[in-house]
């Protein structure tokens, strides 16, 4: 089931194009990372999905449109900064969340335990450190055990210990069969936490897919031969090839970084196969991402 479907979403801020016909699909159970440098449109996208901003064109649909405008009640979200009533303590703040979501028996004990704030639950929010505020925001997102969680730069501004804590918490949440959508500008974070990723830059989608296929050290090689069937049999015996897809009479291979196009050509030659097409794609998406985040 699709949890979220975004089609052709666009948004301008004056003359600046923040989102340019963005398409995206998140399926149930995905830990979906939206990766892009600051200002790439991650927060804008999430703000539109959460009803804070309205898009200029395009559309999005939560849960196949089954819950209409009430869909947000089934989400838990942390957008940019943690926003709470500073004079209220953690329990009272979570009460307000539970009240809005109309949850009869809130799971405050459990979510505060999850984020390690049980000992400070009776302190006013304004006395919290940034790390604690961020953890309370995650607890607030978990109130009522929503099916989908949205975290926007959850480790932004935290010290190394705080970052490690948040990542552990997110992994724990992921282990509970939740769908998580997480925006980040840190490649490492997405690689460690997410199952799927979309890379965006200047509001445009550069790539999306599962993390394994997009963010790894593999090299992409395109090959072609007159007898494709024979070529496929030959290639499937090579262990350095991690995946193979067929496209317009060519095969696109994802191979280990220590394997090269020259190796492949040599091996094919020895087998008596003449390659009619051989292209090594020098830039992987990872290096492209590093390029754009510089």
């Amino acid at each position, binding site marked *: 089931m699709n949890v979220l479907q975004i089609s052709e979403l666009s948004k301008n801020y004056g003359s600046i194009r923040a989102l340019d016909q963005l398409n995206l699909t998140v399926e149930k159970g995905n830990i979906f990372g939206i990766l892009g440098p600051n200002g790439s449109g991650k927060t804008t996208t999430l703000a539109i999905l959460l009803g*804070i901003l309205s898009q200029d064109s395009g559309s999005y649909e939560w849960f196949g449109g089954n819950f209409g405008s009430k869909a947000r009640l089934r989400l838990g979200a942390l957008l940019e900064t943690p*926003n709470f009533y500073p004079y209220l303590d953690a329990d*009272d703040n979570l*009460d307000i969340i539970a009240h809005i979501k*109309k949850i009869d028996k809130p799971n405050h004990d459990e979510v505060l335990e999850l984020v390690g704030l049980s000992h400070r639950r009776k302190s006013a929010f304004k006395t919290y450190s940034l790390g604690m505020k961020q953890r309370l925001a995650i607890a607030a997102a978990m109130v009522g055990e929503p099916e989908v969680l949205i975290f926007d730069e959850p480790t932004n501004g935290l010290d190394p210990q705080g970052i490690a804590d948040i990542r552990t918490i997110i992994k724990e949440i992921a282990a509970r069969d939740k769908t998580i959508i997480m925006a980040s500008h840190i490649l490492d974070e997405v690689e460690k936490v997410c199952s799927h990723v979309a890379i965006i830059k200047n509001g445009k989608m550069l790539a999306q897919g599962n993390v394994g296929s997009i963010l790894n050290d593999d090299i992409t090689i395109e090959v072609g031969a007159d007898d494709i069937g024979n070529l496929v049999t030959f290639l499937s015996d090579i262990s350095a090839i991690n995946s193979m897809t067929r496209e317009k009479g060519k095969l696109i291979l994802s191979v280990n970084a220590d394997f090269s196009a020259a190796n492949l050509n040599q091996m094919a030659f020895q087998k008596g196969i003449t390659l009619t097409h051989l292209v090594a794609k020098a830039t992987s998406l990872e290096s492209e991402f590093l390029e754009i985040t510089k």
Partner: protein
Amino acid sequence: MLHLLTLEWKKVRKNSTFRVLFVLYLILLPSLFLVGKRLPDLPDEIPSADVFYMFPTVWEYLAYAGNWLVFFFLGFLAVLSVTVEYNNKTLRQNVITGLTRTEIFKAKLSYIIALSFVATAYYFIVAIVIGFFNTETIYWVKIWQEWEMIPRYFLMCLGYTSFALLLGLLIKRTGIALFLYLSYVMFIEVVLRWAVHRNLFDHKSMHFYPMNAIEDLTPFPLLKTAKNFGGNDMKFEILLSPSEAVGTVIVYTALFLFCSYGLLRRSSL
């Protein structure tokens, strides 16, 4: 609506500013009024300070005192109820959590209605108690002779708070919104009416400004007989009639609320 009102209550019940302002209203309404007992000199038109406290005139005098307190304390509470949320970005969070913008408007509307209702109920209790202890012979008819002051008091509360709500939503910054609220009610409208409007058209239409109409819902009772009050050279009544004031305030209140709703629908949170 009740669900949204409970939400507002959860937000403010532990807020110290809310508590202080509300308790001050509760304390000041009777105490400010009872200070009149110690006034040394009364104008000639008032034979004795007793009229302040007797049925049925206690309704009018207490409402006049309440007018000032409502303008100040309830108005502040209404401004703060939105500006504090803008400062803390909590309205934004409420929407993220699942409220619609229409629900936010309904929540704020139920909040000011509840505030006005409680303030009016308290006015009612204070008037009954003070009247009861200061009227020598009490008749049922005498107590209720001025019952119209009760709905007018409520409308006065609603008028001030809806105006304050609109300013809060419009300006979003606590300090500037409070300053503008105070200065509009106390100076800006007064200057507009007396210095500008009256110079252009010396006509009764100068009374149909929102804050003046709200004040005329519960005016200083003596102004009703103010024909010979301190050199009044006006060609028309100094006050709006009760029905004119009620009608005018209803129109303005509806307008303020309508604009508040429009602002909430459109503004970025």
